[in-house]
């Protein structure tokens, strides 16, 4: 059991994210464990006949469109950030939320820490598993780095310029 940030709070979390080893093989996981598997494992269906729940994670170069028919059954989609400077996951986030209408948990995993939380939150991520070694309570403040923004985002579809003209500002 470890802690993650979920909807702005620190919560205990039981999901186990599995990554393939060097030979591309996934570890054995007890059938009653809630598990987050790579996209190809999810698509192979072997991982769905379990007593525990199964979710999927996407690598940055994977197409979220491949999950369209699964969105109703997926309790959670994780997106991997192998390096925090790899920004592809932000587009995946917006696509899942805005285009495909995914409403379940969207979790950022990998090189995730304070200084990216605000951006991730804006594009639709609501859960964050921080990079090991980052003190969760300190890093959570990153969600509050900015109190306003200019853009249309999933959190606030009206861009600032429209809200401004409404208040006559």
């Amino acid at each position, binding site marked *: 059991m470890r802690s993650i940030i979920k909807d702005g709070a620190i919560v205990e979390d039981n999901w186990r994210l599995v990554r393939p080893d060097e030979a591309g093989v996934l570890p054995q996981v007890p059938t009653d464990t809630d598990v987050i598997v790579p996209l190809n494992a999810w698509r192979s269906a072997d991982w769905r006949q379990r007593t525990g729940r199964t979710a999927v994670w996407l690598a940055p170069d994977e197409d979220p469109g491949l999950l369209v028919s699964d969105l109703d059954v997926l309790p959670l989609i994780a997106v991997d950030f192998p390096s925090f400077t790899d*920004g592809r996951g932000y587009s995946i986030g917006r696509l899942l939320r805005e285009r495909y209408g995914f409403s379940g948990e969207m979790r950022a995993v990998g090189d995730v820490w304070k200084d990216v939380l605000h951006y991730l939150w804006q594009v639709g991520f609501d859960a964050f598993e921080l990079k090991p070694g980052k003190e969760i309570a300190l890093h959570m403040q990153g969600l509050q780095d900015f109190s306003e923004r200019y853009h249309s985002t999933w959190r606030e579809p009206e*861009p*600032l310029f429209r809200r401004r003209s409404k208040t006559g500002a």
Partner: protein
Amino acid sequence: MYLYDEIDRRIVKERAEQFRDQTRRFLAGELSEEEFRPLRLMNGLYIQRHAPMLRIAIPYGHLSSRQLRKLAHIARTYDRGYGHFTTRQNIQFNWPALEQVPDILDELAEVDMHAIQTSGNCVRNTTTDAFAGVAADELIDPRPYCEIIRQWSTLHPEFAFLPRKFKIAVSGSTEDRAATWVHDIGLHVVRDEGGEVGFKVIVGGGLGRTPMVGEVIRPFLPTRHLLTYLDAVLRVYNRFGRRDNKYKARIKILVKAMTAEGFAAKVEDEWQHLKDGPSTLRDEDVAHFASFFVDPPYETLPAFSETLAARLAEDRVFARWVERNTRLHRHPGYRSVVLSLKKTGVPPGDITAEQMEHAADWADRFGFGELRVAHEQNLILPDVREDDLYTVWQLAREQGFATPNIGLLTDIICCPGGDFCSLANAKSIPVAQAIQERFDNLDHLYDLGEIDCNMSGCMNACGHHHIGNIGILGVDKNGEEWYQITLGGSQGNHTAIGKVIGPSFAQAQIPDVFEKIMQVYLEQRQASEPFIDTVRRIGLDPFKERVYAKHH
């Protein structure tokens, strides 16, 4: 000029606070060098040869006198009394201490300035024509759209970590003075037959290692769709641009790989989902932004200034300056004045704190408190009454601002090069100076006429050498500094990438090489043919023959 409201200020302030915290954590060892590096770059902070270098954004080159005074104060307090204007209309300070950068950002925030996204793999400062709003050949004032793009690009959550840097330029006039063909995205304001205003969208231009002229992916984009379309282009780039090799990561490589048609189709596909969404600009939104760029209270003046005419007739030196360093204005009786930062002996684009203060004073006294930074690295007083030109000229001369060389060979665009930049292969400033010294004779310089000479200290091409009529590139040969010369490059409506004339030269040879090139031009030119036209007409061979001829 755009005026910040409480929200704009809050965003800048919060970014400054965030950066203070990032710097603190780095100095305390909580952030590794690897983690801090992209964060500081996204806030314009490089670690250079001597000290950090801080690049401050001057959105589309617009500056108020108050802001310029603040920059003078920063130059004096935190630096060595000067700053350097870049080809992206920004200003750089070369000597601040890392620990003091958060304080500089606080000072900047007081005058609504910042260093957000002046470096790093994100959308950089949007640039435009330095004469926007006052140019005589303007179709549409591009500045409201520049401001719309500035706000859209500032801390955009989807595009904070792109494969590589991303530069957008906007042009609103017939003559493209914003180098839109060599940007990641170039936007040209156009009108269709029905009179509707839109943009021609050019993508995938750029200089650097693989110079390319961009491709039109949409001949006409109605202005209301600007932001949703930009989102679509950036998303395609963010998802599919290469991240495995930084030299192949710019959008131009992706456009080439997909072909312009393939790329355009992919964008179109993406855009269908974004089009007409909440970021669509309504008339009232555009009107809101346009309201910041209305004309200042110009006086009604005769189109012909007798004072000016008299001065021009009696003072040849002044007349030369007026010819070279002023531009026609949309409003009768006014001119725009270019303060030259290309004086011989001073690194191109460098400006002292005193010069900043004087220029700020003149902007207040003779104009409406505004200045512009040109991507050619000069400073502009946009609105000067023709009657005042003589006084302005005298003052500018006293401050070393009046070298009458705008557009001429010695108005060299030049990056900081090996004297400051840690990426450099070679120094650029001493080479620029040697050329300026060699062509110091004004009569000769005027006879040569308009020649763009651009110089970069390495492949990154910050000095835009590819689009100089003559380009100079610093190269490394076995640890020594050498210089490659290109001819035939140009910016504007006939943008072209220059061609290398042959093997590179040692630093000391450059003035002689230039002299030979100029001899060939003078011998070959027809009537009043400008240099670039002669090069285009006769090709490179006559120049090569002369330059590489064995002396016997």
